[in-house]
């Protein structure tokens, strides 16, 4: 019996790479190395990664980096990117001022 979600699954050692300092998440300034290292901390899903490192949690909400993060995680976890779930999507689709959000009374009902 194979259980793929066993979090003790061996993904090998963390091996530093020369471009580990390159930023992947531009908004929250998360590097490739941080993402790779987090995989070795047991971070196996996109959702966990966002919560662990804040990648994709900045102003743009992962619109620029989620595909990049997925690729890096898949390589590190030695799986196909298709085995990782799509990045979370949360409303609002664009950042909106609280004052404007608060003003929704005009045509509710």
């Amino acid at each position: 019996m194979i259980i793929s979600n066993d979090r003790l699954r061996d993904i090998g050692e963390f091996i530093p790479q020369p471009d580990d300092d390159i930023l992947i998440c531009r908004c929250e300034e998360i590097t490739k190395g941080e993402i790779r290292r987090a995989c070795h901390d047991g971070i196996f899903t996109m959702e966990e990664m966002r919560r662990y490192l804040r990648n994709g949690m900045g102003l743009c909400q992962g619109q620029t980096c989620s595909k990049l993060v997925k690729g890096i995680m898949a390589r590190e976890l030695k799986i196909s990117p298709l085995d990782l779930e799509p990045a979370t999507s949360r409303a609002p689709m664009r950042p909106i001022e609280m004052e404007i959000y608060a003003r929704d009374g005009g045509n509710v009902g």
Partner: protein
Amino acid sequence: MKTTADVIIVGGGVVGNAAAYYLAKRGVEVLVLEADDSIGHGGSSRNGGGVRQSGRDVRELPYAMYGIKHLWPTLSEELGVDVEYHQGGNLRLALEESHIDILKGQAERATALGLDVKLIDGKEVHEINPYLSDAIIGATWCPTDGHANPMKTTLAFYKRARELGARFISGEKVVELRKFKGRIRSVVTESGTIYEGNTVILAAGYESREISKTVGIDIPMSLFYETCLVTEAQPPMFDIMLGVATAEIYGHQCDHGSFVFGSGTGLEPSKVPDSSDLRVPALDVSANCRCIMKYVPMLKDAKVVRSWGGWMDITHDHVPVISPVEEVPGLLLACGMSGHGFGTGPAVGLLLSQMVVGEKPICDITPLRYDRFKSDR
């Protein structure tokens, strides 16, 4: 793949992960089963991050206080992940006289148990936190309360427990418990796998109810939905946890600079209870913003970048069940956290590990027994 362990923990939330950590630290073989693909998918990562004693029931206060005194201050160091814990105090705010009455009662009950919490007037509130609305007429002030990052805390316990050898399996939904010769023994999952252990800790939030029913135990609890929103980063303002007398909102500014606030529309009790439906209702974020601006008007220009929702497992008396089950020896319950699970998570995890290895617990938990619920008619 090994399917047996000394202790099987059902639920990879903050309580399950903390229990796994404290058990692994005590050399106990642990296996954690999480139904979702992600560890910490439920309320553990969806709450407002409060680490509080004020406002807690007298039955919870002993371990809530223990956690703040002995566990939270060193947690980041211990787990090797910055969980962003800040002991900046908690202000529970009042806008009108009726609110003061609510706060007075809470302060009196907590003070009686030795908690440093006092009622202060509007002027004192603004001395402590100048960023709040001038309309605030008073608050309770508990200087030893604080907040932390729920997502990182939950994953930090997981990471450290895993490093200590605890086995976690995600995407493994538990559907049944089985006894063997009078004791708990098997944990059956949706995929048909049967795990076996000497002790089973059930810490699966509301889902614990369906699971415990399979060994004849039903905990009276219900689902309650709330949402959170987070703003873009703001310049550092305060590290005080905020609450309000009416419990409409709660929140704080994170290390990151963003503000996280939890709230609802007030229509939550009529939301169809379905823990798989996490979608934020259409009226929610707007209502949340209006509420926040009543107390912190200067956030009006802060942009909301994200909102999310989660379900709380609320027991009939709003106090968790942390309890062994004599009818099912070896089964420990840690559920019905009633919205207090994050701040007390580390202490509850420690308590559970103590129950497993037979250590003297940090406090008396008999008031949290599963069979305390009685009809009042």
